[in-house]
């Protein structure tokens, strides 16, 4: 009886997963395989492909590409950490019913739903080191003007800040929901035991929020890895290559320089790197994750 059920389960499993996998294969993996194929050619999308073996990969073994990897890691890391921390902070502070709380939440969330284009243009003006609003504000407080988008040392962090500004509403909303799902009894019991605010956070709030945090870390990391619009509009990967991140680098190689072979090789390398990282992480944490079964 059990083995018949097990076999039926297996068959069911394939049936349920099959269509998804087929589509994933077609619309996600086929392009990656295509990139792997193109990566050993030199191709400008127009003239016939020319086989060059691993030349594209050798060309990518360069400080420029290394910088792209570092930039991407910094950008993603910065965005995820800041957005998470600020989102959680805001959620904790706004976790009250009330009209003013709802109004503030709405304000903060409004920037999340606007498109990147409108927002990026605005920020370019506001960050102008000569007369932008931000520069004006800094001068009022006696601070010197900063060349936010024009200085290689600062530009990437400027993009991080603008991205955090824009996406802050999302983790805030999700954390708010997570907080409101924590039963009040826990806090009452803790209060009876005389726990301080910080301890309450550390031993009740934070652990009970961990699924929410995991959810947000994954979502925000994926979203930031695919960051493109903000770079395209605000800096074009510059100044010099200080804001060149993964997706923009591939876009530039493929559609500004028409070096599809090199772009494809970059795709394969990134894909491989992330796959390795994911595999490593999964193997490491496999034993530690526990689910209520």
């Amino acid at each position, binding site marked *: 009886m059990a083995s018949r059920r097990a076999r039926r389960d297996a068959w069911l499993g394939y049936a349920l997963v099959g269509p998804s996998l087929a589509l994933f294969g077609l619309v996600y993996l086929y392009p990656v395989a295509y990139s792997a194929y193109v990566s050993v050619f030199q191709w400008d999308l127009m003239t016939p492909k020319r086989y060059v073996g691993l030349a594209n990969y050798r060309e990518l073994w360069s400080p420029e590409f290394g910088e792209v990897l570092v930039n991407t890691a910094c950008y993603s890391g910065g965005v995820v950490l800041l957005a998470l921390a600020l989102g959680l902070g805001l959620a904790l502070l706004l976790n009250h019913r009330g009209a003013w709380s709802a109004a503030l939440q709405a304000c903060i969330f409004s920037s999340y739903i606007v498109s990147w284009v409108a927002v990026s243009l605005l920020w370019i003006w506001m960050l102008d*080191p*000569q007369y932008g609003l931000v520069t004006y504000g800094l001068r009022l407080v006696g601070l010197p003007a900063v060349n936010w988008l*024009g200085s290689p040392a600062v530009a990437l962090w400027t993009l991080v800040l603008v991205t955090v500004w824009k996406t802050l509403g999302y983790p805030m909303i999700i954390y708010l929901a997570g907080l409101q799902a924590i039963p009040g009894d826990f806090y009452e019991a803790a209060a009876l035991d005389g726990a301080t605010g910080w301890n309450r956070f550390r031993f009740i709030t934070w652990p009970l929020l961990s699924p929410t945090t995991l959810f947000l870390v994954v979502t925000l990391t994926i979203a930031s890895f695919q960051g493109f619009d903000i770079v395209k*509009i605000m*800096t074009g990967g*510059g100044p010099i290559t200080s804001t060149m991140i993964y997706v923009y680098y591939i876009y530039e190689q*493929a559609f500004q320089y028409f070096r599809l072979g090199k772009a494809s090789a970059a795709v394969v390398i990134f894909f491989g790197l992330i796959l390795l990282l994911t595999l490593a992480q999964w193997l490491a944490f496999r034993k530690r994750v526990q689910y209520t079964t």
Partner: protein
Amino acid sequence: MRRMLAVVLGLWWLAGAGPAAADPIVAQFWYSFGGKNREVTEAHIKKFNESQSKYRIEGTFQGDYFQALAKIRAAAITKTAPAAFHVVGEALPNLWQGGMLESMEEYAKGANGTDLADFVPGLTQAGYFDYLGKKPAPLFALPFFRSTPILYYNADMLAAKGVKVPATWDELRDAAGKLTVREGGDTKVYGFEVPVDWWFWYGLLHQAGGTLMSADGKRAAFKDKGQEALQFWVDLVNRDRTMKQPPGKDYSAWEVANTDFINQRVGMIFTSTAFLNYMTENAKFKVGTAFLPAKAKAAVPTGGTYFVLLKDAPAAQKEAGWAFIKWMTDPEQTVSLSKATGYMPVRLSAINSPAMQSFYKDNPNYKVALDQLRNAQRFPFSPALFDIQREVIQPNLEAAVLGSKTSAEIMTTADQKANEIIGKYDR
């Protein structure tokens, strides 16, 4: 009675069975600009379609230049590319050599031909390219929206400070110094601003007496004079501190320069003549225009886009595309396009017409770009041109201005990379 009816019906059927009024041949025109240019183009497409019934052109927006180029190439692979589109001059040799473009020689001489001699020489394909001692390529491009960079200056500001309009590099440095206004550590007004961009650098290169490639196109030749050009900017930004480098890449930087000029944050800028309408309408001061300053000589690049036909499109669509392109470059249309946008008219007869002549008399600023054409510099007809612009020069200029590399280092590396690319195409 019935027989007569049959005869009438028969005759009627015969009359209708003759060559029926054919459906118009439909062809696509892909373009890559939005805003005002798009409106003007779409209006003209509509007018073209209404002016005749043989062809119908459908125009669609395809993103910016590079997205459009990518889509055209991808579409060419699957044989769904449009019959006609427009493309920047620097990309033409590459596309021609890649076999994508259709020759227009036969069309131009044919029944629905056009008077090639009437085109403004500096704006045509023949006037744009230096064929490097080889046989010139056949006609495959007609000018669409063409422009040159000019010097815009705030006439009120210059008059107030008693500054003369600069005609040489030294005078430009001088003027920029006099126009810059500083308050404590901040610069309230810059004397000069220009995007640190391939197009303007190309102008400076030639003003300094240099060229991009050797006369036979086999080697890069810009190292020394290109460095002089770049160093001019470096000095203005970092030593004199009278020039602002607008932040952002490509057109974002151009927009910053335009906005700064309108807001009187800068006294003089270099930018395209195409913005003249925009500046005049939005500036609250008198806008002056002048030639780009000279050094060893007066020189200016031209820019903008050309109409081209796609070789792989079906013959009927190409015919329709040609009819559209020819019509768009006819004197009447080039006048209306020019007046609506600020780009230059491409036909001599249009420029010499009483309408345009009186327009220029009332708006002398518009004539500057046209007059400046006598200093127009050619581009080498080499497939390496596009790569050199996009990969070798454009992304690397700003490093000098930002101080992370010297202009000498940049030009040496650029020279090397350019020669590699030329070698790649020569194979």
